[in-house]
Structure formats: structure tokens, C-alpha cells
């Protein structure tokens, strides 16, 4: 049914900034401290306390805005968003409203169905987090932990430019990658340092106007992004196809049921009564400050990917994998700088190195120089690919120099044609019938003979040399 429907999705992403202290006070932001131990009069909202902006948080927010190609405004205004909730100690959240820090950026990402898509970033603003209500700790009571109260956040409001749940996932993945790259956030959805709400609507293919949308909340894991949006899209389509109409409301995703339910009306329809925060003067950024943040930005993933394609002649796909993470990209470049052939280096990084890292707390355990040596040993015919993998594993586990380890393990390929000829003679003698079949035209048996030589040599024979000797002997006799 969905083939005749188009889905329109825009994401609102909250990202916790990686600062030591909170947005408006000096309290620590570390995750996992005992409840209500990282608090002070300011983030507790005690009578008479006043906010003082954290310059480090402002710097990180500006970096995010620049990385997203936003216009960073020299003057923005903090505003109060008023609502009552026990985990909101002041009764308002300090945010930004009609004059945000930055507007009008873009994020390009690889969409599963449409290729490279450039989605708009409508705005990016600074705000403080609320505390946490804990409903399952005490029977019949809600506990409040204010350690998170006042932690700095940015909200990134994406345009309605995503066309499927899978696309939304890809967008979020790319955004996460970018923000991790520039080091402004941990972007850990499970710890709540990355949170996403989605605006979803559907329309019949060919329509251009936007229909009534709903907001999907409570998507608290990366794995649920696509699921939650698919459920909501399907609900809207089914609703319209059965003659109903979508009403503007907030839907809460339930991951256990893989279903959405409307938020009770009591919980929504806030009038936040925004007004400029009188405790804080407008946030004025000097051109020098913005330039400083710009110069603190590393090469961004897209630029790095393009450079890898151009410099190392990698395919776009390979370059994308190798640049997906800043540490991996740096590692790859160091391997190449240590003398490895770029494509071979990419193959090793994408397979052995990443697989090993996955099993070992994301540590790239083989030093770039060592991997370059392994690559060179394979290319020079000293190690077979299989033997090189063993050496890689040894170096990863125990360290050491690859050649020395290869020698110690007896994995160096034998390139002495006399020695190889001996193995060849043995193999041909032991397989007379195959020799006969080969000679009568069944040349595909060459692979079989090479395999047998490798077996006889316990993997030490240089396979290319073995084949050459085999060919000589089989045609000579």
C-alpha cells in the first residue's frame, strides 16, 4: 500500500554537549553519579540564584553550527520556556526561541533509496536540560534526580526533508557521526546524550502540500528510530485509507509493543509563554570567537571522504567506511603514511582491523607501522594472505614486529624454486589420475594441484611460484 504514499519526516535532535560543567553553573555533568549529588543553588532553582552562561558550551554549540553549515548569529537571545513539572526546578527551562544561536544549515547523507540527499537544518539553539523523574524506584511515588538539571544541550531542528523511516535513520546516523567527529558530544542514545523526536506526515505520491503531522516521542534507542517511524507512517496511511484523518498530536513510542499511542491530552498542549530571559543579557559572539571555533574544527567526514577518493583512489563506498569514524580514518592514513599501498591498506583496515577493534573495546591494537609492514610482506610474496592474518592476530594480541613473528611461526613463504619443485614432484606423484585428467584437457585441476602443494608445504609455498613450477612440470613430462 505504501508505494502510492510518500512519507515526510523531520527530526528534532537534542544533543548533550561534552562539557565538564553545566550550562549555567559550575556543577559537574558526569553521567552516573548518585542522585542529587551534582547540584547547587543555581541548578536546584533555589530562591535568588542566577544563571551564568558556560563559555565552553557556547563554543561547542558554535562548532556544531559551523559543522552543519549554519549561519551563526552574532547576537542571539536566551528565552524562558515556562511549564510546571517536578523535575524542572525553576518552573521554566532556559532555552532560545525567536532569536536562536544559528539557522539555515544543511546535512548531506547517503540515503538508502535516493543516494546522496541534502537535508535542511532549520535552526540550532542552546538550552539547559531538565532533571529526571524516576517512576520505578519507589512504589507509589516519583523520585526526582536533578544531576541532569542544567546540563547543556543543543537542539537541532531538521527540515521536513526525509522521505522514509530508513532515511531518517541514515540522517541521524550521519548527524551522530558528524557530532562525534567534531568532538562536541558522546551522542550516546542509551545514556540520553542524543535524543530524537520526529515529525511525521504522509501524502499521496505527487502531492506537494504538507499534511497534518504528528510528533513521535520516546524513541530512546537507535534501533527504534526506523521501527517507530514505520509504525507511525503505517498508522497514518491506514487511517487515511479507511476514510479517517490525521490529527495533530504527540504519539509516544512503546518499544516493547512496537506500537505508538497518543500522549494524553493532559500531558500536552502547553502554552510555554516564551519570553526573553531577563537574567541573561543577549548572547553576543565576536567574529574572533566564531573564527576560533571554526579553526578548532577538524576535517569533516564528507570532506575527508572526498579527499580519500581523490588522494588514495578508493571507491566512494570504501572511503565512506574508512572515514566513518575519526579514529579509524586517522589510523588508515597513518598506515598509508607508513608505506602501505592505499587500496590494500583500506582492505586490511575495513576487515581485520575493524573486526579486531570490535572485539576489543574499539581499540585499534596493531600499530599503523606494523600493519603497513604486514601489507608489504603480502605484496612482496613473503607472506600468504592466510599467513598474514595469523601474523596480524599475533601482533594484535602480543605486539612485536610482524616479520619476526612470521619467522617465529614459520609462516614465511618459500620462494626457492628448488624447494617448491620438491613439493610439486611429491604432489604429482601422489595424484597420477588427476595428472592424467589434466593432461587430457581438464586444466581447471590446476587449482587442486596448487592447493595440494600448499598443503604439502604447510602453507609456506609461494602459491604463484608453485603454480609456475606445476605448469612447467605438467607440460614438460
Amino acid at each position, binding site marked *: 500500500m505504501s508505494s502510492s504514499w510518500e512519507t515526510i519526516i523531520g527530526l528534532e535532535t537534542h544533543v548533550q554537549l561534552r562539557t565538564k560543567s553545566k550550562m549555567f553553573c559550575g556543577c559537574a555533568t558526569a553521567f552516573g553519579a548518585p542522585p542529587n549529588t551534582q547540584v547547587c543553588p543555581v541548578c536546584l532553582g*533555589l*530562591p535568588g540564584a542566577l544563571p*551564568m552562561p558556560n563559555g565552553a558550551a557556547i563554543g561547542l554549540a558554535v562548532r556544531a553550527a559551523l559543522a552543519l553549515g549554519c549561519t551563526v548569529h552574532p547576537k542571539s537571545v536566551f528565552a524562558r520556556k*515556562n511549564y*510546571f513539572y517536578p523535575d524542572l526546578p525553576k518552573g521554566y527551562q532556559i532555552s532560545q526561541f525567536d532569536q536562536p544561536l544559528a539557522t539555515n544549515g544543511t546535512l548531506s547523507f547517503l540515503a538508502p533509496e535516493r543516494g546522496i540527499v541534502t537535508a535542511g537544518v532549520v535552526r540550532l539553539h542552546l538550552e539547559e536540560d531538565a532533571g529526571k523523574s524516576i517512576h520505578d524506584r519507589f512504589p507509589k511515588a516519583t523520585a526526582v534526580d536533578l544531576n541532569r538539571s542544567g546540563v547543556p544541550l543543543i537542539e537541532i531542528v531538521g527540515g521536513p526533508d526525509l522521505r522514509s523511516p530508513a532515511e531518517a535513520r541514515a540522517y541521524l546516523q550521519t548527524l551522530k557521526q558528524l557530532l562525534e567527529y567534531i568532538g562536541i558530544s558522546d551522542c550516546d542514545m542509551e545514556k540520553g546524550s542524543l535524543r530524537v523526536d520526529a515529525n511525521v506526515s504522509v501524502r499521496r505520491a505527487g502531492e506537494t502540500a504538507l499534511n497534518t503531522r504528528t510528533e513521535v516521542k520516546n524513541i530512546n534507542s537507535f534501533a527504534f528510530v526506523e521501527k517507530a517511524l514505520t509504525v507511525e507512517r503505517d498508522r497514518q496511511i491506514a487511517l487515511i485509507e479507511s476514510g479517517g484523518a490525521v490529527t495533530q498530536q504527540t504519539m509516544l513510542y512503546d518499544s516493547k509493543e512496537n506500537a505508538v499511542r497518543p500522549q494524553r491530552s493532559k500531558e500536552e498542549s502547553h502554552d510555554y*509563554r516564551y519570553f526573553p530571559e531577563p*537574567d541573561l543579557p543577549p548572547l553576543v559572539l565576536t567574529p574572533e570567537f566564531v573564527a576560533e571555533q571554526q579553526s578548532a574544527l577538524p576535517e569533516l567526514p564528507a570532506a575527508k571522504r572526498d579527499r580519500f577518493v581523490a588522494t588514495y583512489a578508493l571507491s566512494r563506498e570504501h572511503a565512506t567506511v574508512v572515514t566513518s569514524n575519526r579514529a579509524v580514518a586517522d589510523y588508515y592514513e597513518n598506515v598509508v603514511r607508513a608505506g602501505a599501498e592505499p587500496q590494500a591498506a583500506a582492505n586490511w583496515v575495513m576487515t581485520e582491523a575493524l573486526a579486531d577493534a570490535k572485539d576489543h573495546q574499539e581499540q585499534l591494537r596493531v600499530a599503523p607501522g606494523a600493519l603497513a609492514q604486514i601489507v608489504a610482506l603480502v605484496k612482496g610474496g613473503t607472506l600468504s594472505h592466510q599467513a598474514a592474518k595469523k601474523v596480524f592476530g599475533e601482533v594484535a594480541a602480543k605486539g612485536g614486529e610482524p616479520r619476526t613473528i612470521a619467522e617465529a611461526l614459520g609462516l614465511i613463504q618459500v620462494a626457492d624454486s628448488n624447494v617448491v619443485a620438491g613439493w610439486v614432484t611429491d604432489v604429482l606423484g601422489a595424484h597420477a589420475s588427476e595428472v592424467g585428467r589434466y593432461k587430457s584437457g581438464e586444466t581447471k585441476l590446476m587449482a587442486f594441484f596448487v592447493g595440494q602443494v600448499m598443503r604439502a608445504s604447510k602453507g609456506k609455498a609461494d602459491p604463484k611460484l608453485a603454480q609456475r613450477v606445476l605448469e612447467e612440470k605438467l607440460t614438460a613430462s
Partner: protein
Amino acid sequence: MSDAKAVADRLVKAKRLNALLTPPKDLRKSLAIQEAAARPTGVLYGMPVAVKDNICTLEFTTTCGSRILEGYRSPYEATAVAKLKTAGALIAGKTNCDEFAMGSSTEHSAYGRVLHPLDKARVPGGSSGGSAALVAAGAVPAALGSETGGSVRQPAAFCGVVGIKPTYGRVSRYGLVAFGSSLDQIGVFGRSVHDAARVLSVISGRDPRDSTCEDRDPLRLPTVPESLQGFVIGLPKEYFPPELDPAVRRACDRAVRLMKELGAAVREVSLPHTPYAVPTYYVIAPAEASSNLARYDCVRYGPRFDGRVDLRGLYRSTRGQGFGPEVRRRILVGTYVLSAGYYDAYYKRAQQMRALIAQDFRNAFDRGVDLLFTPTVPSPAFKAGEKLSDPIAMYMSDIFTVTANLAGLPAMSLPIGRIKGLPLGGQLVGQAFLEDEMIEAAYALERVVPATDEA
């Protein structure tokens, strides 16, 4: 130099005024401890300073005259209080005030009204009525108050003492419980211009905890001038309307004549947007208050008024019973003017009008006027209960004072005479951060004006 016991005795003697919220026992105990700890080198060494109950202190509770903060003890102290202590002053208890500083008579305190020191049937003004009354009664030489729309100058005028509201940003607001954050400033009361000014000098200056506090050195005290030669005093005609109480006019005329005799040039000026000041104020201040007072939900501190109820029930009972009627009225007004669909018509227009009012003052000062002189209040202290049932009449007693708050300018009131034994105040309004000029003129006027004579 006063010792702790004498200080406490004087304060306890003034008990009948209901100006002090601190129980005598607590007061005596704390004063003895403070005296032992006070730094003898401080410029205010041994000087008792009473503090309005909406300014956080470690020594005493901070209730803001409200039920909703009954028994509340702040875990930190206001920057102004810390500066007083560093200067060797003694924090001489907490003074009664209108609840959350909302009122002009100190009748809106949950802890009972404050009596006027000269006539117990009358109000001392407000909202810092307790501080004004204690200074007027001679219980303390100086006290801290706070202003949002005249809450220091108006009670100073009613009680016949000096009251100074500094420029917005001159004194840190850290630890001053917020009412209207863009208008609030801590102010001072003194028996004399000098007492008030030297306390102001101590509490002024930069504070890394308040982003709205200017990065400036503390105020330097001027010397007492020989004359007012070179001063140009402006008389804004809107502050002297035909219907002004003739006695108030006589007192002002006399003060103006005395300033002229001291060499000041006097000229009439116009602040044309003055009629809009009170309505503007009563949009902006309640709007900010409705947000500032949202934190009082009794979830983290303060008493709870009902047993186990749901969340809405908790809010309804604590805020319904914890706040008095005037605070509830202003929260409702403030919530209304910030609501979707009304923001532009009220809050936004009020901000535009505020800018015009501030521009009026700049225009006057740009034309060579150094200071403005006006009556502080349109009438002397009124009777208790007289304006309680008519909030608008109560609000109008701020008519000459709210403009300085809206424009963020320094202003002060000093006694300039009496009507039927009741004090009258004259107001000086200065240019931003030029408190020294304003205080200089006040020194000169104070020396010549017959402050306790009938006008």
C-alpha cells in the same frame, strides 16, 4: 561602635512595629556570633544593617513575607550580604515586607502588617516597609531593601528616611529573591545620606554570579559639596500635575528654592511618556513574576499544605494556599499577558513603551540636565486598610517611582518636610552609573532642607 547586645536591645525595643521577622532569641544569638567573627578592619565594622526578608542570609530564615517559604533557610547568602559581612557589618535580622516584594504598604505580608513608626494607624509604605520603619525608629542606622517599582524610595519617603535605588546592574542581584528580574535592584535605607551611601558603596560592584551586574568597581563616595554650582536640575512637568497635593508641592518648591540658593540651575523638562509608566510596569513586572514564582511548588522546599494528592492537586494546594491574594493576582495577570495570542498586545507593547520611557530620560539628560527632582510620592503615608480593597489606588502610589526602574536609572528619596507630622520625600533621579553626582546633590540638599518642618 555598638556591641551586639546594645544592637539587639534597640531592635527588640522596636518590636511593636512588627518590622522585624527574626525572633529576639535568634537575633541575640546570631549577633553575638557575628560580632566575634567581624573583621575590625572593615569599613562598616560593627555597623548593624537589617536585611529585607527577600535577600538570602545564612544566619536567618528567608521567607519573603510568604507562607510558601515559611521556615526556609537558604544554604547560601546573597552577594550583597557577603560584602556587608566582609566589610565588618552585622546582619541585624530580617525585615518584614510585602509578600515577594509585591505591594506598597507592607500590608501584604503573611506575617502581619508593619506599623508606621510615627502613627500606628498608618502604613510605612512598601514593599520594604520593615526596613524603612526600623531605620526611622532608630533601631538600626541602615538597612537593605529591594526595589522593583519604588519599594525602597516610597517607604523611605513615608517614614522620613533616606532610600537609594542604584542603577540596574550596580549591585549584584545574586541572592535577591527574584520578582521582576529586569527591574529588581537591592537598595539601601539610611538615617542620613551618608549612612545609606556608604552601605551602597560596600554592596556595589561586579559579581561573577550575576550576568546582569555590570563589570565595574564599587561606587566611590563623593565628598559633601560646598555648593551646587554647576549642577543643572530638571523638573519634569509631568511629576507636578495641577492636582498634586498642595503641601507636597510646597515642600518640593521649598527644596528647589534651596537648591537654587546653593547655586544649582533649575529648568523645567518634559518626560512625555510618564502617564504610561504605571500600566507598562504592571504588565512587565507581573509577567516576569509569573515565571520567577513558578519554582514555588513545595516539591523541593517549603511546606506542603495537603497530604497525599496527585501532581495537579499538589500544585493547586501549595500555590493556592501558600501565596497571598496580591501575589496570586499578579501571577494571574503575568500569565495572561504572556499567553499565546496576548503576548504581542501586552508584553511586547509594554517593552516598546518601556524603551520610550527610557528614551524620555536620555533626551532630558542629553539637553544638559544632570539630575531630575520630583516628589517621591503623591501623598504622605496613608492609613492601613485604606487602599487594600482598591489595587489600582495602591498601584498609583508608585506613580513617581516606577519610571526609574523601567529606565534602569539610579534614584533616591530624602526627607524634605512634613504634612501634619507625616514625612514627605523628595526624589532625585540620576544618569546611569552616576550615583556619585546624585549623592553629591543629596548631601547638599540634606544639609539645608528643614526635613522635619511642616511644608
